[in-house]
């Protein structure tokens, strides 16, 4: 660990730094010009800089990078780089797809909106790459506070204001719980550095340490809010419904991925999975089972497409937690790898699904499932893309969603009868999930539009986002083997400290 903060260390932090700077630039531009296209394009093109910087780190363009910087607070291992790239993709797509929606429905000046997204993005990127509890907490707040604002940006819509207030209150509570968990870990180990915590698990701590167990439960609960795991999921449907749709997209992919990134960082990198296996496993398995059931059954009952997507993403979090439970049991990178692959596919497909919702909302302002009647006739390409993404989310072969779900269940298989039951439950819930995803496809393609409605006009930005998502899905499918190997490297990098 180098002890001076010089250029090499700045390089390690440069992706996050450049995103933050970009956010200020966009905010400043907003003062100078009122033309929304300028801020939008600046944000989009500007994102290429952090992207290039992340690639420079990934491929060591300026010499071999150190995987640790700022006295161990920043970890730039392959795991962190995976998530940085993922978040940059999310940020790019969210900003790209927002163009028309922001103009039409948000009273905020667009520059503000993009700038807030970028700030949150910086926080998310840090959540994957922090190596220390306090830093993780600060990144979490950096992520969350802009999200509270994003939820309330539809100033004329009371539902949006309600969503924002709910989000603030529940978010604050979950942060408090998380922080409390962290203090307990600190109390048990005397350090907030995750690497030191991991060392303590081999020396000072022992299995069944009560302080550690309570701390673990609180931390899990805190992140459980972020990833909307049952029973901490109540906020999701209301806030998804109330928030402006592009923000909803941002919550559903960004916030979830960030929550899982930090969860894995703390539990795996911090060595917590090495102890208290049984307690932890039972807790995670029960939460995973409940999350899958509530998410998928809840989604069946919805009439609003955004609420349905909220429950669907709760269900998806359930599958991810199955992977986490598997990880806890066999303590190898397989569960980790499966979760990361699943997250990647989930992010890409969810972007596609929400792009379809945004396209309809752009044109009509409606967002009920019934409003998708005949969408396939009114906007065939967008509907086809959305259909592909929804069916991929459902895990219908041959798309990547099938493989990513298979990989999760495959990692969980055979780890004792409890896990086997969890896998069987997961498969049955996948069968349930196909019903509500296929229902949207049914409405889009089978049911004719009520009256002769006009062709839905979409902007090129929406079309482009859909193209990214659909091409992404196909590419992920064909290159799935490659994806597994590459992600496996990242997954392994998290385990290098956890030598048992």
């Amino acid at each position, binding site marked *: 660990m180098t002890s001076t903060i010089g250029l090499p260390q700045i390089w390690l932090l440069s992706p996050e730094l450049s995103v933050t700077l970009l956010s200020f630039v966009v905010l400043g531009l907003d003062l100078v010009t009122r033309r929304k296209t300028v801020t939008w394009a600046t944000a989009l093109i500007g994102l290429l800089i952090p992207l290039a910087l992340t690639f420079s780190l990934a491929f060591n363009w300026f010499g071999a990078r150190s995987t640790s910087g700022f006295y161990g607070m920043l970890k730039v291992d392959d795991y962190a780089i995976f998530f940085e790239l993922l978040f940059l993709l999310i940020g790019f797509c969210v900003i790209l797809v927002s163009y028309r929606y922001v103009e039409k429905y948000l009273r905020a000046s667009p520059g503000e909106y993009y700038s807030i997204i970028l700030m949150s993005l910086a926080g998310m990127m840090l959540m994957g790459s922090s190596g220390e509890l306090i830093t993780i907490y600060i990144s979490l707040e950096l992520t969350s506070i802009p999200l509270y604002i994003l939820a309330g940006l539809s100033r004329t819509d009371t539902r949006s204001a309600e969503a924002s207030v709910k989000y603030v209150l529940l978010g604050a509570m979950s942060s408090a719980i998380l922080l409390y968990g962290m203090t307990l870990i600190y109390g048990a180990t005397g350090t907030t550095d995750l690497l030191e915590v991991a060392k303590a698990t081999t020396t000072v701590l022992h299995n069944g340490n009560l302080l550690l167990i309570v701390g673990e439960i609180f931390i899990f609960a805190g992140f459980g809010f972020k990833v909307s795991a049952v029973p901490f999921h109540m906020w999701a449907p209301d806030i998804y419904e109330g928030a402006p749709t592009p923000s909803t997209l941002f919550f559903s992919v960004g916030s979830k991925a960030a929550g899982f990134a930090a969860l894995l960082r703390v539990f795996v990198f911090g060595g917590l999975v090495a102890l208290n296996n049984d307690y932890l496993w039972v807790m995670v398995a029960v939460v995973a089972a409940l999350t899958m059931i509530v998410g998928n059954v809840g989604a069946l009952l919805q009439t609003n497409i955004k609420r349905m997507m909220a429950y669907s993403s709760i269900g998806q979090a359930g599958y991810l937690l199955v992977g986490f439970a598997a990880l806890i049991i066999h303590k*190898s990178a397989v569960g980790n790898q499966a979760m990361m692959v699943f997250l990647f596919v989930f992010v890409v497909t969810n972007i596609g699904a929400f792009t379809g919702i945004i396209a309809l909302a752009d044109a009509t302002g409606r967002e009920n499932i019934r409003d998708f009647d005949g969408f396939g006739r009114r906007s065939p390409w967008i509907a086809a893309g959305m259909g592909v993404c929804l069916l991929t989310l459902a895990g*219908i072969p041959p798309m990547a969603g*099938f493989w990513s779900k298979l990989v999760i269940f*495959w990692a969980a298989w055979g780890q004792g009868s409890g896990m086997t039951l969890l896998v069987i439950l997961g498969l049955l819930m996948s*069968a349930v999930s196909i019903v509500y995803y*296929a229902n949207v496809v*049914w409405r889009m393609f089978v049911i004719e539009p009520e009256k002769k409605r006009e062709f839905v006009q979409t902007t090129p930005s929406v079309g482009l986002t859909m193209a990214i998502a659909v091409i992404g899905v196909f590419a992920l499918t064909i290159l*799935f083997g490659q994806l*597994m190997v590459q992600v496996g490297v990242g997954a392994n990098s998290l385990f290098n400290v956890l030598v048992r």
Partner: protein
Amino acid sequence: MLLTAIVFLPLVGGLISLLAPDRAARWIAAIFTGVVFLLSLWLYFGLLGNGAPNFGSVTSPQWYLDVPWIDSAIGTFHLKVDYAVGTDGLSTIMLILNGLLSFLAVIGSWRMEKRPRFYFAMMLILETGVMGVFAAFDLFLFILFWEIELIPMFLLIGIWGGARREYAAWKFLIYTLVGSAFTLVGIFLIYFQTGGQSASFQHFAQTAPTLAGTLPFFGGSVSLALAVFLLLFVGFAVKIPMWPLHTWLPDAHTEAPTAVSVLLAGVLLKMGAYGLIRICLGFAPHGAQEFAPVLGVLAAINVLWGAGASMVQKDMKRMIAYSSVSHMGYVLLGVAAAAAIGSASIDYRQAALTGATLQMFTHGTITAMLFFSVGVLYEKAHTRDIDIFGGIGKRMPMLMLLYSVACFAALGLPGLSGFVAEYLVFTGSFATLPVATIFAAFGVVLTAAYLLWMLRRSFYGPLNMKWDWLTDASVREAFPLVALAVVILFVGIYPQPIINLLTPSLQQLLHGVSGLAVH
């Protein structure tokens, strides 16, 4: 590469027809399915040559292509999926059947007015999925192709179906989904229990005889091979369909448009039977042996239940749908007989299994012909009610002739293909499962009863003057019927080439089973 072309050409055709103008879609579909059919024939004729041809078996497939796709190993976990396709006798015959019926289905729906581009695209994507199922030589690849047909079929029934299409399409979807969830669990189980290093068919065929031991199951224990067999079988049983999981079928058939019914009965049901023979029987023979007596009983129930239900139907199409349930029972019986424990010689088992696979092929052609005939009638008369007609054969002599050929083939008239298959099944199964066979044999009588009764009520007898205006089938409408009649007649008179084609792969399958019978 030939096999890859056969699997993916329909998909390419489907995408092209989506982009093409409405009027061109059917031509594109016809050209692509026609070419694919010719290519699938080459799978057979390409192997004929000098001397005794080698049609391949699971352990030494023909036209084999293996491209690594997913290969990820961490610690002891190894996920390996290959794009592996190949053929043996069993899959060749199914690939040809699918090629033929898909082509005829396109010809049969030539007059499709409603959203034709989308219709033909869905039909072609469906063909890709089914071709893939029959060509796959990797278990994960198999299940991947297995589920592709789901959404096209769902939409085909849903958009172009009859009055209760919504109900039928959703029922089809849900039944299939729940079934395949179990199959997936079975695949996990067999994958991990046989080393967890490879999912290739060759690997499973080699480990099949050693798949033994028990699994803990809620305090007790269950035989591993039986667990694998049953889990895999649930998904296949829904597709076959086996009583009591068959109820989706009459609804789906009744509501689906003619050509879709043809594909549904002609090839989609065969996917289930193919899975049963290739995977359940081939890879878990111990389990098949344990389950065989129950399977025999279920087969007899299938035969009788289907035939009994056919007897009371008023709707001609629904009647044929139930007759499919009945006829697929013979396939189940053949498989049960081949696997059953007992001292019966290998020859009987082989006869039963040959009969079962032959039944898959002949039922595909015969039911397709029945559905096409009903389709022709329905398109003119706009009703399928058996009692409403009477003597219409006087106005439609050609249709009557062809329909009668199909019915005679279905009821097992010697000289037509149905007879050969059923005879082989019964000959083989009587040696191992005499009681079930005796009961199932009554199915033949019932089949003759309901088919002939239906023919008498609608086509023969005095002409009901209400239908005086009916005209006979046109050349285009008769084309699929004549083509199928030729196949049925040929197989009925000279089945030897097909039996020769099937024998090596079935012998390989029975190798595992007969090895067990000695113990």
